[in-house]
Each structure stands twice: as structure tokens, then as C-alpha cells.
């Protein structure tokens, strides 16, 4: 973790001060033993820290988009780890459940590298195995790391001036880093330790990831023990959007989590229940009158599309039931669907 601390402190000191026109996203992961006499810290087992600092947009209820993910069996020896780190568009694309359409020729134009230039930092550091550091002439190490250790940091500039409106909004550059580490002969089963952090925005992107993967059967069958990506800008966007391996790190876990999670419902007030019944009846009526186009449009907005229309109807009703817990959430849903339904509920 000292590597990260040094890197982030250096960048922060050089660039940031107390500015809110920089967005800083940091993760630090240690699996094994880590000791440092300078900081007088000793970590044994699993430690992970995730930190984001940067501008928020309280008037819009928004924050810069970041994404941190780790999946590990937590073995110190022969670990399986997958790690993913992304900001900006890369964070959105990697967490979006479906791949976007391939870009058109026009969208593949050279990136818009013009306007004010500001310093930007994106870095990762990883160690696997034994890492010793010595200070001065002392024969005793000043820092010891044994196991897996990784740090990821990005310090991304926003525009200097306050973004006045939608046309002058901050844009958060994309970065992406990934790590897939598998030093074991056979993948671990079930021992996972996911962790993620997120926020929201509009600025620059970078992505980085590392990992050992309990489910990486294919990787385990190869001689290759480590795969690592590091990208910024359009490269980060493309990897996040279209690379099956990188998308697979998160998507598989996310789908499994959704599949197994039982969401907790609540009793709602009678007026809310009446509104939920009204919209549920409306959905059933669409199904009974075979209004497939409308049902598809609603399902798409709610992210519950299905090729089987009855299943899709059920998905919609279930999603509405889970989403609406009071009049505020009902108002929000009603407004969301109004462009399709043409009416409020």
C-alpha cells in the first residue's frame, strides 16, 4: 500500500491542493502479509481500500462515474484474483448489461485532443510473491509484502471553470485497468470476495484491472498465469464496451448476484398500492391485447427485456413491484414511462 500512498501523495501534492476540478479515484488491495516499519502498519489477511474524491453535482444529484471491482478466493498461495478499475465512460460501459452497438465510421474519428491541457495521472502497481524493501545500510528490511498486492490510482482533471449548464458540462476522461491472476492449477469454487465502489459524472476515463479468478477455468488450463490491461481514452472505452474477457469479469458476477439475491419488499401505503395496481393492470392489458411494441419499450427502459412476451410482462410487473416503495418512487416511475405510456399513474 505504500506504493499507492507515495504515488497518490506525489500527484496530489503536485496537482491538486484542495481543488475540486480534479477527480481522484484510488484502490489498494492486499491479500497476504504486508508490513512497513515507516508507517508502522502490519496487515495480515485481506485488506482493501477504495477512495474517490472530486467534484459532486448536488444540484443534479450526480457524481463522477467510477468503478472498482475485485473477485478473489483470498488464497495467499496460488491465488485466483480478478480486478477491474474504470472511470468515466469506461465505468459506464463495463457496468452496462449489454454491449453497445459497434461504432460508426464517424464515431471512429480521431479523439478530440484540443482545448486546454491539464496534467493527468493514471497508474497501477502490482506485486505477487515476496517483495522486500531495504532502507539505508540496514540488513533488516523496512517493508515486507508477501502475497498479492495492487494499487490503482487516477487523478483526472475537470475543466477549470464551473460548468454552467448542460452544454458546458464537465467531462470525466475514461481510464481502464484490469488484472486477471491465476497462479493455481485449478480454480477455486465459490470462495469469492467481491468489492466495488461507484459514483457518477461526466469527464475523463481510464481503466486498469488485475485478478485471480475462481471461475476462470479456461485460464487455469493455460500456462499463462496473468493477464493485465491498462488503457485510457478511446482504448479504455473500447475495451470496456467490446472486450468479452474484461466485460466477463464483472458481468458474470453481477448476473449471478442478481440471480441469487432475494430483494426485500415492504408494505406500502394504500394509495401507493392502488397506483401499483393501476400500472400492473395496465401492463396486463398491454399483454392481453398483444401490444408487444409498447411492452418491449417499457421492458427496455426497465432493463428486463425478454423474447418471451409473457416472461417479459412478468419481468416488468416484478420490476415495478420492486422499484416502487412510496409515492416518490411511484412518481419517478410514472414520469420515466410517460413518454411510452402517454399517461401518468
Amino acid at each position, binding site marked *: 500500500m505504500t506504493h499507492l500512498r507515495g504515488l497518490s501523495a506525489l500527484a496530489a501534492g503536485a496537482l491538486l491542493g484542495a481543488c475540486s476540478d480534479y477527480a481522484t479515484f484510488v484502490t489498494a488491495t492486499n491479500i497476504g502479509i504486508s508490513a512497513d516499519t515507516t508507517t508502522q502498519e502490519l496487515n495480515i489477511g485481506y485488506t482493501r481500500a477504495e477512495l474517490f474524491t472530486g467534484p459532486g453535482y448536488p444540484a443534479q444529484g450526480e457524481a463522477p462515474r467510477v468503478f472498482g471491482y475485485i473477485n478473489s478466493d483470498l488464497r495467499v498461495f496460488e491465488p485466483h484474483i480478478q480486478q477491474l478499475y474504470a472511470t468515466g465512460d469506461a465505468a459506464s460501459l463495463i457496468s452496462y448489461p449489454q454491449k453497445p452497438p459497434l461504432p460508426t465510421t464517424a464515431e471512429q474519428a480521431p479523439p478530440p485532443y484540443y482545448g486546454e491541457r491539464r496534467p493527468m495521472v493514471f497508474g497501477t502497481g502490482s506485486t505477487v510473491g515476496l517483495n522486500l524493501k531495504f532502507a539505508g545500510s540496514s540488513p533488516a528490511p523496512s517493508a515486507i509484502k508477501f502475497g498479492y498486492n495492487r494499487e490503482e490510482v487516477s487523478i483526472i482533471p475537470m475543466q477549470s471553470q464551473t460548468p454552467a449548464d448542460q452544454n458546458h458540462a464537465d467531462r470525466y476522461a475514461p481510464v481502464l485497468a484490469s488484472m486477471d491472476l491465476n497462479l493455481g492449477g485449478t480454480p477455486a469454487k465459490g470462495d469469492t470476495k467481491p468489492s466495488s465502489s461507484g459514483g457518477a459524472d461526466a469527464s475523463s476515463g481510464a481503466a486498469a484491472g488485475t485478478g485471480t479468478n475462481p471461475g476462470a477455468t479456461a485460464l487455469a488450463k493455460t500456462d499463462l498465469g496473468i493477464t493485465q490491461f491498462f488503457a485510457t481514452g478511446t482504448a479504455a472505452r473500447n475495451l470496456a464496451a467490446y472486450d468479452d474477457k474484461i466485460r466477463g469479469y464483472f458481468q458474470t458476477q453481477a448476473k449471478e448476484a442478481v440471480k441469487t439475491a*432475494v*430483494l426485500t*419488499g415492504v408494505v406500502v401505503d394504500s394509495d401507493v398500492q392502488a397506483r401499483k*395496481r393501476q400500472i*400492473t393492470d395496465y401492463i396486463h392489458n398491454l399483454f392481453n391485447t398483444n401490444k408487444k411494441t409498447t411492452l418491449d419499450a417499457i421492458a427496455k427502459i426497465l432493463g428486463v427485456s425478454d423474447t418471451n412476451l409473457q416472461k417479459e410482462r*412478468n419481468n416488468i410487473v416484478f420490476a415495478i413491484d420492486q422499484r416502487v416503495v412510496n409515492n416518490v418512487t411511484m412518481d419517478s416511475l410514472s414520469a420515466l414511462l410517460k413518454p411510452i405510456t402517454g399517461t401518468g399513474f
Partner: protein
Amino acid sequence: MADPRDVGFAKDNSLDDLNLFVRQQEELLGPLVRIGNDGNQTVLTFDMDQARPEKHAVIQEGNPPASGSGIKGKVFVAGQLKDAFATR
């Protein structure tokens, strides 16, 4: 065809609240077909491929009458796991 969907309900709720929740869920999702728990909360299963029932299921503590039909399981009532059954 059946399309069972699980819905959780917090363990500290009363039996009255549980039954109100069952009624509200049946009005939207379909008939209650299974009751149980996942160790942390009560888990109720509704079949969304069946028509929403006019007469709603009612969960009671204890074991069902020997001759009666119904759904049996363990649910949380005021934080405690209880044997329960549902009839309509």
C-alpha cells in the same frame, strides 16, 4: 407453465404485517405458492404465470390441520423463526 418469483420480507415484522404484505404482493404478482426463509428474512414465492387471486392467502403460525391443504414452511415472525402454514 409457472414463473415463481421470490420476494423477501424483513424478519422483525409481525404476522399481521406479513399477511398484509402477502395480500399486496398477490394483488400484483399472483398467488403465493411457497413460504420459507433464507436465514435472514422471510422468503415468499409468487407464481406470476397464474392469475392474480381474488381470495388471498393467509399465513398462520403452527402446523396445518391434518386434513387441510396449504403451504407449509418456516417464516420469521417478530424476529423469531416459526412453523407456519398458509391457506386461502
